[in-house]
């Protein structure tokens, strides 16, 4: 499953030859992330974040397993047990801060990875499956992070769990019994904490499994690239190792500097002070907010303040709460339809003047606003601003993107990646071909089909 010119693994020693016959694991690694995986030669730093996300997944699993050795999922002792980790376990504070800030950095790199996908249309054919699996990973990450935040059993843990599990109560008819069944009681308690801990331990391994599918699906068409022009020949690619392992190594160093800076100097900056107060079902915090990485979706949830009624009557069609819940889930589910909403044959935002404007001056400010508004107090002017931002968010994906992709005239694309990098390509026509000849469909631009 790679290009015809991909290097093949050749075992050198007697042991590796023996191993290759019995279990060709080194061959698999060689072809997946080694010299046997040809990658476009023009990837920029935005292509670092996949590897970085993988790194943070591993970091979360390693620190998480160690923390689980010292934790107890019982509402009576959970809060004190976390303090036991912070105070009595050797370097327990480092493990816990690494895990808490690791979650934040996992989301930072994932958001950059996703927005790379938005800008360079990484979701377009033939890479739809990679994108769909990526959205699944993101949903699993959100579930895992939410349940992890409940485990210290602080005030924000408890009240966050109460608000989020309360969302299921908005579902008509079955909502309330469903909520009681999911939480194991009328409010989050011992049974909720236990099942959240169990699932918080399980889901990262499910994520790891979907990540394998994500990478597998990636290796069928190969990596995308900043021009959006498909790989045509060997001069368009270079082996993943050593070229991109070296580049990713540098990227990893940079992100680790930022990460360790947060870990050692500002470990509580991204957290909430209320979570250092033990959960108390009788005392509601002044402002209940989730972790920062959920802010955009929390802003969308809270944007719906009025019930959906038939105008000038008191008949409520959909209560405000349910509207918010639907909108919040829809805001992520809409990503599943992205490959079919964006019809433009050109992938890269570089060559899409109109799309580019809507991306930088529409979607990015809108997301920045939602990030800010999700953590703001539920009062004016934040409510009306989050309503505008929510409206724009859906407008962008459901209206602007389909229309722009139909009417925009793309800039001419380079003939090949080689031409984009070197300025000329002896094998090509020399001149840039019109963009309209390029199709994102089944590669009619004469790119070779990857050999199976």
């Amino acid at each position, binding site marked *: 499953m790679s290009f015809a010119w991909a290097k093949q693994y050749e075992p050198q020693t007697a042991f590796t030859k023996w191993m290759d016959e019995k279990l060709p694991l080194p061959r698999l690694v060689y072809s997946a992330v080694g010299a046997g995986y040809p990658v476009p030669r023009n990837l920029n730093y935005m292509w670092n974040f996949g590897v970085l996300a993988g790194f943070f997944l591993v970091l979360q699993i390693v620190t998480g397993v160690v923390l689980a050795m010292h934790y107890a999922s019982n509402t009576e002792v959970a809060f004190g047990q976390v303090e036991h980790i912070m105070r009595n376990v050797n370097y327990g*504070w480092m493990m816990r801060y690494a895990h808490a800030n690791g979650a934040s950095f996992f989301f930072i790199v994932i958001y950059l990875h996703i927005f790379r996908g938005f800008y360079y249309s990484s979701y377009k054919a033939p890479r739809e499956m990679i994108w769909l699996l990526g959205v699944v990973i993101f949903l699993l990450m959100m579930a895992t992070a939410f349940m992890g935040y409940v485990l210290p059993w602080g005030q924000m843990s408890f009240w966050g769990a109460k608000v989020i599990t309360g969302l299921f109560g908005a579902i008509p008819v079955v909502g309330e019994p469903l909520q009681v069944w999911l939480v194991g009681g009328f409010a989050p308690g011992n049974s909720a904490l236990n099942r959240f801990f169990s699932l918080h331990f399980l889901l990262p391994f499910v994520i790891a499994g979907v990540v394998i599918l994500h990478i597998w699906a990636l290796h069928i068409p190969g990596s995308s690239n900043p021009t959006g022009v498909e790989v045509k020949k060997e001069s368009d690619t270079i082996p993943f190792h050593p*070229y991109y392992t070296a580049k990713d*190594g540098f990227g990893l*160093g940079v992100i680790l*500097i930022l990460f*360790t800076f947060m870990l*050692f100097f500002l470990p509580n900056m991204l957290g909430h*002070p209320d979570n250092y107060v033990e959960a108390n079902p009788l005392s509601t915090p002044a402002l209940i907010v989730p972790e920062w990485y959920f802010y955009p979706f929390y802003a969308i949830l809270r944007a719906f303040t009025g019930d959906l009624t038939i105008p000038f009557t008191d008949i409520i069609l959909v209560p405000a709460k349910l509207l918010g819940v639907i909108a919040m889930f829809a805001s992520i589910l809409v990503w599943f339809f992205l490959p079919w909403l964006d019809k433009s044959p050109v992938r890269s935002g570089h060559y899409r003047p109109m799309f580019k404007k809507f991306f930088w001056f529409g979607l990015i400010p809108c997301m920045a606003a939602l990030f800010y508004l999700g953590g703001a107090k539920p009062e004016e002017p934040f409510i009306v601003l989050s*309503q505008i931002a929510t409206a724009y968010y859906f407008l962008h994906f459901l209206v602007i993107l389909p229309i722009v992709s139909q009417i925009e005239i793309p800039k001419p694309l380079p003939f090949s990646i080689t031409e984009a990098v070197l*300025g000329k390509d002896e094998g090509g026509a020399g001149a840039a071909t019109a963009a309209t000849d390029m199709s994102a469909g089944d590669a009619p631009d004469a790119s070779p089909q990857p050999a199976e």
Partner: protein
Amino acid sequence: MTIRLGGIIVGLGLTAVLVLWSLVPGLVNFAIPEKPDYYAFQEENIAPEGGFSFEGAAGTWDYAQLQRGYQVYKEVCSSCHSLKFVAFRNLQELGYSEEEVRAEAASWSLPGVDQKDGSVIDRPGLPTDYFPAPYANDVEARAFNNNAVPPDLSLMTKARKDGTHYVYSLMLGYGEPDPADQALSPEFETPEGLYFNEHFYNINIAMPPQLNEGVVTYANGPEATAEQMSADIAAFLTWTAEPSLVHRKQIGWFVILFLIFASGLAYLSYKQIWAGVKPKKE
């Protein structure tokens, strides 16, 4: 096809109209906002002159200050506030010797079990014990404190925004309300049994002013002014909330300097590996 498309558009349009209609109450509220009617509290905390020794990337503990803060806790705060996540053995980190910690622990009385008949008795504390709670339970705490539970102080500086400065500000925040502010909210009045404190989110706090000048006597150190005691207790509670604070920053320097060095090497090897692939910029 056209009919189906038309249907979808009509349906979407109808939904859009209904959704927009649901936003009307919010817009009305935005245009004619309801004025909040409350006495604004001082959200900005104050800091002692010269700041705290442990602040900044290279901060270290001032052990004399931590010991003074411990004295303030022991002689003032501990009569109402527990410190349940701190053990006597931890006091060694404040510069006390093992002997001193043992003597200090023994000066506290903890509930124990009589080994002969199993009845509950008082016993002297051991270094392995945690600080005892002043009240048996929340009900007793409420009964003694005008229906308010004095919170545990172990994590206080992490459980409040800008916690160290918050504790310092709160200790010094007592006084009389500003007449100009009071004129804005005429019905404002501090209820019986509560105390005005401009740094408390509720303005009125159940805890009476505590750190009045001379309430403790420092054996050999600065004069026990309200500012001095407030700074000392804020420093001590910062340590109880995060004993690893200074150690953490020290490790951080090594880790980050190493990572900068390693990233530099990674960058050079990246450039060398790519030298033959990337064309020179013209």
